């Protein structure tokens, strides 16, 4: 992100009805501390709202957090909307309580990285940096 000294913007969001925001806020804070400009959407946003604000805010990455088990259908909707709006260059990452069996399905859908409970802060920061560098 040091290139041209313009920090890349990231949108951290909560889609659907899930209110667990601790992880999303924590990741927002550690990415901010790492120098990124991070927009946190608050809870209970629709896939449409997430995609619209990602485009409007011109973010390079969207990170979505799920602890409700609804990650597969809701990620699917976000992916479809990004494609429909020609915004699928935005990198998509996820986090939360995601069963290991679902990781392959998420990656196949186009989710670049999934951070599950216990992941080290440094690991998140490094992976985000690597994804944004490409």
């Amino acid at each position: 992100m040091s290139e041209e000294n313009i920090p890349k913007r990231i949108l951290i969001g909560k889609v659907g009805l899930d209110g667990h925001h601790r992880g999303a806020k924590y990741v927002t804070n550690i990415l901010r501390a790492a120098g990124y400009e991070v927009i946190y959407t608050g809870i209970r946003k629709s896939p449409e709202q997430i995609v619209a604000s990602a485009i409007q805010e011109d973010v390079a990455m969207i990170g979505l957090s799920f602890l409700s088990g609804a990650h597969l259908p809701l990620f699917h909707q976000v992916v479809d909307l990004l494609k429909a709006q020609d915004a699928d260059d935005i990198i998509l990452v996820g986090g939360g309580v995601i069963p290991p069996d679902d990781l392959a399905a998420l990656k196949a859908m186009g989710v670049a990285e999934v951070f599950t409970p216990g992941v080290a802060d440094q690991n998140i920061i490094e992976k985000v940096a690597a994804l944004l560098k490409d």
Partner: protein
Amino acid sequence: MRNTVNDTTTLENPVEIEKQRWEQTTVAKVNQKFPELKAQFTTSSGLPVDRLYVPEGADVATVNNYLTKLGFPGEYPFTRGVQPTMYRGRLWTMRQYAGFGDATEANQRYKYLLAKGATGLSVAFDLPTQIGYDSDATIARGEVGRVGVAISTLSDMERLFDGIPLDKVSTSMTINSTAAILLAMYIAVAEKQGVSPAALTGTIQNDILKEYFARGTYRFPPKPSLRLISDIFAYCVSHVPKWNTISISGYHIREAGSTAAQEIGFTLADAICYIDTALKAGLKVDEFAPQLAFFFACHTDVLEEVAKFRAARRLYARIMKERFGAQDPKSMMLRFHTQTGGVTLTAQQPDNNVVRVALQTFAAICGGTQSLHTNSKDEALALPTEESVRLALRTQQIVAYESGLINTIDPLAGSYYLEDLTDRLEAEAENLIKTIDEMGGMVAAIEKGYPQSEIEKAAYAYGRSIATGERVIVGVNQFTETEETRFQIFSVPEEVERRQLESLTATKAARDASQVAAALAALEKAAQGTDNLMPFILDAVRLNVSIGEICHTLETVFGEYSENSI
């Protein structure tokens, strides 16, 4: 009552004299009605165990300190417990929070838990139900039956409790913004079973304030939400008197990242707001306060947790007596449910979680909880499997039947460390309440973002302490393994959403549309005025008017709350 060789020395110690009084009055009274489980309690090797241990020293400072700060179980300030004989009279309720899929599937899990020795039910609802959307709403897509059972109409609720006699089981329902509707459905199911609402026992969470800053299932703004809560209080006083009308919850505050002191402080500040609201609505404190219940988390720092429960009891008793002028001791008792800490579970080496849960269970019992949910080892990964839920329940049973912890009340009292921690947590929580009072109460504090930002700061500090290695989490930042053991993971079957939609469509089609419209019109009119809304909601649910329809109608009058994002 007590004939031991110590009786002569006893009389020289004012604490012992008081203890005799307690035995002869408070204990004798409850023992007549609910005798202790055994005539004589002993250690595992046969030594007799007394009901309660008190300080031996008879100097003025020790005596005064003991009598004012600790006192006796079942007596003000309730530091040592709310019941006179605690677990010697009755074990805590072993209550496992469960629910997923549709009503038929959840009903099977409840019957399984009851068959394995669970002594109460605890219903988890899916998010659409918790926020007041029907399973067929667009916004509910992908969420139906995920984190709990989907309930849209009375017909779903009837299937949920099919074959479970509601006068024989106590049921806790984790439901907040839509609590009035689910309670109405529960009453309607009881009526159909031929059970009088007066016989129903259980709890609705009904704690909306923490939803705005910690849990997120709000629907309406604070003011009309508080009105619904005091309508429930008033309705239950005259119709469902044994029901716990609210479970004021620190659990989610702690899960969102708070410290132990913040858990007590914010929870009791919420309680103060509910009590003020009910008083303003014209209720008398001793009418409704005995039915207020609490819900806390239990983490792994064992003694801090024990101290937390004791501090919360003492502080609440003082608030009820001094601030609200309660006269009935029942109004001053902080009765609580506990759940072991979800956030303390790790996805790495999940078997380690069994040990964490056992330590947390130990702390909850030493802290005098009235009921307990133990988490399953696999909950950092998914909903628990049947097998891991059974292990979690067995953990409670081992503590109850093998550990000897139930033999004496408040067994850790008198530990210098524990008493000091209890004092400090109480003082810190009281300071937080003072800060919130100065802001104009909890609603104003939430509008200012105060509890939100305090919790976020604490969560950030906690996370950073793990990242830097200052705080060790076994299997996560030390003692890690490269190969993770794969094991069976529970998933909600795919066809649940479709099945629920089909049955909802059929239920809706079978109704008389003009009756539905009339019930909703009556509800809307009542919402615009000041009548108690419970009878209107009850009339509506009896006609299978859905939760989505009721909430939509209320929303047209009350408006919808939405969080200010950062």
